[in-house]
């Protein structure tokens, strides 16, 4: 069991979401950075889609009520009882210890996973909190100070006593996920249905950089920059949407829909972000800049594979390292001593 000691608003329990119900109006929800969630789960021996805590407002503190294997990934400066934890790290903590998360200048959201996963009821196939629908997670609401969370039964896993980490994807996969020299995030997208109705503004959409405005949250990001407008008013019939769709409301400043996006939309859509870049968008901080880069299905497939290979490498190597260390150390210190005699 864990206890929430301190939390900002809008920190929620999330897993990989509940896709499959858009046709009855249900938002998929799920982690804004699904890659960080998967890695956190793999590090503690969980299925990659187990439920964890998504922290996007800080400071955040929790107390462990029993000895627990946990992992922190994504953007945060984490400390255990005041001792700094390296980024993207897993380790065992004792009952009573306090995990503290402070904001990171690099990324917006952190994921805290626990061996066994956060055990809240499964609603429509997922434990993700749907704030708008008011279900999932803890009674469909954000975490509050004083909440206690039950954990599932941990899967037996071998973890080195000193803990273990991963090279964060932004470093490990840097050659595939570029950032411009001035730190502008480069986000790959494909033109969407109404792109060509924007004329010259459609080209400017790609060439100019956009700032993520303060009116941005799990539902979507409002971008600020010089407006882009279609050459004539466009009327749309309501259509199904997915996270990553870039729509342009009449004001001309685009909106990128994110994890808590509505299931249907009606604004003209100028582009759609590749799934492979959504995790980076999910970690983009308010006030930071991004530029859209025109991509292709071929590039999307390459990036999908790069991410899948990274996840597999973490899954396999973490287990291999744990087993190898256990083998080298021997099961118990007493045994090793015996060997020496």
């Amino acid at each position: 069991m864990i206890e929430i000691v301190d939390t900002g608003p809008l920190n929620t329990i999330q897993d990989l979401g509940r896709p499959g119900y858009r046709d009855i109006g249900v938002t998929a929800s799920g982690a804004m950075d699904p890659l960080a969630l998967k890695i956190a789960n793999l590090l503690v021996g969980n299925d990659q889609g187990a439920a964890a805590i998504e922290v996007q407002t800080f400071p955040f503190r929790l107390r462990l009520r029993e000895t627990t294997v946990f992992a922190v990934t994504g953007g945060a400066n984490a400390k255990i009882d005041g001792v700094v934890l390296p980024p993207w790290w897993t380790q065992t903590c004792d009952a009573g210890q306090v995990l503290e998360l402070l904001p990171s200048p690099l990324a917006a959201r952190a994921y805290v996973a626990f061996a066994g996963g956060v055990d809240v009821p499964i609603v429509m196939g997922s434990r993700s909190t749907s704030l708008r629908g008011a279900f999932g997670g803890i009674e469909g609401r954000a975490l509050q100070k004083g909440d206690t969370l039950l954990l599932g039964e941990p899967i037996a896993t071998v973890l080195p006593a000193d803990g273990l980490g991963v090279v964060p994807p932004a470093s490990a996969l840097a050659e595939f996920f570029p950032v411009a020299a001035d730190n502008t995030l480069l986000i790959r997208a494909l033109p969407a249905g109404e792109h060509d109705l924007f004329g010259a503004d459609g080209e400017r959409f790609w060439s100019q950089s956009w700032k993520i405005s303060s009116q941005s949250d799990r539902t979507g990001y409002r971008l600020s920059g010089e407006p882009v407008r279609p050459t004539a008013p466009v009327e749309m019939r309501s259509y199904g949407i997915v996270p990553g769709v870039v729509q342009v409301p009449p004001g001309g400043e685009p909106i990128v829909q994110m994890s808590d996006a509505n299931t249907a939309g009606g604004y003209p859509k100028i582009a759609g972000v590749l799934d492979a870049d959504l995790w980076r968008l999910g970690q983009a901080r308010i006030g930071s800049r991004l530029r859209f880069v025109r991509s292709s299905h071929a590039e999307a497939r390459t990036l999908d594979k790069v991410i899948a290979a990274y996840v597999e490498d973490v899954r396999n190597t973490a287990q291999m390292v744990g087993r190898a260390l256990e083998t080298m150390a021997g099961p118990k210190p007493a045994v090793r001593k015996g060997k020496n005699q």
Partner: protein
Amino acid sequence: MSVVDFSDPATIAFLAAALQAAGVDGIEIIQPGRTLRIVTGRDAPGADPLVQILQSTSCAAKPDKVSAPMAGVFSSHHPASSAPPSQPPLKVAAGETLGFIGIGSILLPVKAVKPGVMTRRVAEDGSVVGYGDPLFEFEPRP
């Protein structure tokens, strides 16, 4: 009482397979009195690994060295950190992380076992180190 026997062919085969899976070239396990060295053929993955069991009379790593917990690539700082690592001598607390060993995408911490001063980095950043290779020189100071 079960004992890990590094002369057991099954254990050696397991370690060799694990090394190959991780893309690591070799491992050296030093125990008082003997050393197990496994070198896998990176260029010829199908080939049998070279296994040597060396008897030795020398003692284990000296207490003033901090050594590699496993074979891998040494790094004195976390890959996500942009700041250059501080230069020795450095006062460190027990349990403080001094550096990392990278195995694929996995990072193993190298920690100070007791409080003291790290006086010198022995291994170069980015170099491949074997199990037990000295990484730091260390003066324990309670």
